[in-house]
């Protein structure tokens, strides 16, 4: 029971840090003024156009595609297989399982391989391309190692019979966390490693470069409408300069 307790506390803490940290960050971004119009042009001249631009950035990584096909391939592969994997995992937190989660299940299972492949491709670039090697710090490597380890431990549990866990018991544990009706966690080593790594990832999310996820929504070069001649933008601190004259 003690291991279950440790993991229960760990997941409550990780969730609190992830959610609290992200809310804090998003509040800081939202409250920081944008005193000047700085969209990277050509930029849309309407709000709808901007929404479409952002949608392309977030779904197909448009700028990255323009930039470098290898990074785009590995990066996109990783992010979208990870999305599938995350959605598939909803089955461990919902009862009954939503029908569309069931639909994703067969793809989600194999998407783990895509995740690992994309991540390994990105990691290889950190060694093979001298420019990328130069800009990589220890944390950049560790972040990839963490994500790769999460993907591989997950795949091992799915595809190697000896490392399978009692998935029904795991689901009971997770639902127990959600409904404050605590249940024991199956004490399988691969599961415990996997969950430990996931909790680590959740906790470092709001204090690391993973902030690119909320950040992209707040990037003025992408989310501003190109209409400076038609609409006057004036931030509060800049307006003070005017009134002091």
């Amino acid at each position: 029971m003690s291991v279950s307790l440790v993991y229960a506390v760990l997941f409550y803490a990780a969730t609190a840090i992830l959610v609290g940290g992200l809310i804090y960050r998003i509040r800081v971004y939202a409250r920081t003024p944008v005193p000047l119009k700085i969209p990277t042009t050509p930029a849309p001249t309407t709000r709808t156009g901007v929404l479409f631009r952002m949608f392309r950035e977030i779904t197909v990584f448009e700028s990255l595609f323009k930039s470098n096909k290898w990074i785009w391939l590995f990066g996109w592969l990783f992010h979208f297989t990870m999305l599938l994997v995350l959605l598939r995992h909803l089955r461990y937190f919902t009862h009954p399982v939503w029908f569309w989660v069931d639909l994703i299940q067969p793809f989600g299972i194999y998407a783990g391989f895509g995740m690992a492949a994309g991540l390994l491709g990105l990691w290889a670039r950190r060694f093979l391309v001298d420019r990328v090697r130069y800009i990589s710090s220890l944390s950049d490597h560790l972040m990839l190692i963490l994500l790769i380890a999460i993907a591989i431990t997950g795949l091992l549990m799915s595809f190697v019979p000896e490392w399978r866990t009692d998935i029904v018991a795991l689901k009971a544990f997770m639902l127990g966390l959600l409904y404050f009706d605590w249940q024991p966690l199956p004490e399988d080593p691969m599961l415990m490693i996997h969950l430990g790594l996931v909790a680590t990832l959740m906790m470092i999310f709001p204090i690391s470069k993973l902030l690119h996820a909320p950040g992209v929504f707040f990037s003025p070069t992408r989310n501003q409408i190109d209409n400076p001649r038609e609409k006057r933008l004036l931030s509060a601190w800049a307006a003070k300069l005017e009134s002091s004259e």
Partner: protein
Amino acid sequence: MADFETPALTEFQLVPHIKKGSMAHSQTFAAKPEFQEDLGFPGELEEGWEDVAVKKLGELTTKYRGLKVFLDSCVKCGACTDKCHYYLGTADPLNMPVARQDLLRSVYRRYYTFAGKYFPWLVGARKMTKGMLDKWYCYFHQCSQCRRCSVFCPYGIDTAEISMAAREIMDAVSVGQKYCNEIIGKVYKIGNNLGLPEKALVNTLEGLEEDVKDETGIDVRFPVDQAGADVLLITPSADFFAEPHIDGLIGYGKVFHQAGINWTLSSHASEAGNFGMFIGSYENMRRVALRIREAALDLKVKRIVVGECGHAWRVAYSFWNTLIGVGHGGNDPYAKALQQQLDPNYPAPQHIIELTYDLIQKGALTLDKSANDDQRVTFHDSCNVARASRMGTMPGGQFVLPREVIKSSVNHYFDMAPETIHENTFCCGGGGGILTDDLIEIRVKGAQPRMQALMDVVQEYDVNYLAAICAICKSQFSKVLPYYKFPMDMIGSVHGLVSNAIQLGAKQ
């Protein structure tokens, strides 16, 4: 200045392997204390400057959302690493946009992030030291704020914003660049970047009227301080006498003349360029721009037109409405005081290319393309026009309109390779406060990608005229073209071509 080798032009653009420290010796002259003080900055590096710098950095992250988001969001993916013309031309890894940003980001992390405070070795966080300051001074003066990296970043991180912040922080501890800061001082004292006083300006323009009269037999006016004129022209002061800029000014004059537009220059605001942007100082940028507001109010003009100038057009197009209320749609008394005077039928400000283009569309100008038949022309998209502004009503109009004006004036036009024009354009190598002789090495090397693309059209189409719409591009190319064995007079104004082609006198 140390000797250096001009980069070789090859069969196609190469991405070099990194050569650490290859531009570490680059040093731009520092501004003297009295010039720093003119701009409201301290004159000397004082005890405890590190704290001042760190505090300033923190303050900027609370004033500019872009800066804050950019500092937090980079994942070091490497997409930008081969996009900067200064990296391509020098191979110095600190000229890769992400590495240039990291000079500042590492300090931000050290003082303003959890990971950087407690695990600096893990995330590459560094203290603000004299060594770091020297690196900033070196490499943030090897950025022309051209925004090419921001096109390719998956999060839109714009190194221009980072280098502006770095320069503002350096100024806050007295470390400023002579070129930018002395020029800003001249604008405050005299009204333009060149320090051309009113009398000299008037004389120059009278001389210009005589020249045009001698050449064409027509009285084309170049008026100054004409209250009640419809149009106030704000143009870079280089247009008043530098070559080939002046051909552009003559072209604007002929266009106004032929269209019957009542226009004027202002001796109070005789400069479009705004170096306040280069040093990232909102206050100085605003103070420089204020002269234009004052001139517009004084002269009671209805329209404000901006001459060929890249960074100036960025400030005018994107920032003037914010800074000084030149624009439309303002609801506050400050903006209204000016905007009620401006004609709502025209964009404010309007680019001279937009004005000429509209007149061509309306058939108000007669252009004889054959007058330019000895010119085989290509067009250099100036970085700040391309990636930080617009012309016309359509996104991307900044690429279409200048080309249409050129094509209406010449018979032989050829674009450079698509990956080097439009939003992908390469900076001339001299923008953003780099256009000074003490930085000639980085200017020449940074021009390499543009020169490479130019060579391709020279070889393929016998191009002999590189048209540009930016005072800095024009000066920079005049200087660096010879390093690459091109004739220096290959660079010309777009309105220089218009000037050759335009038929003056009564319309048939």
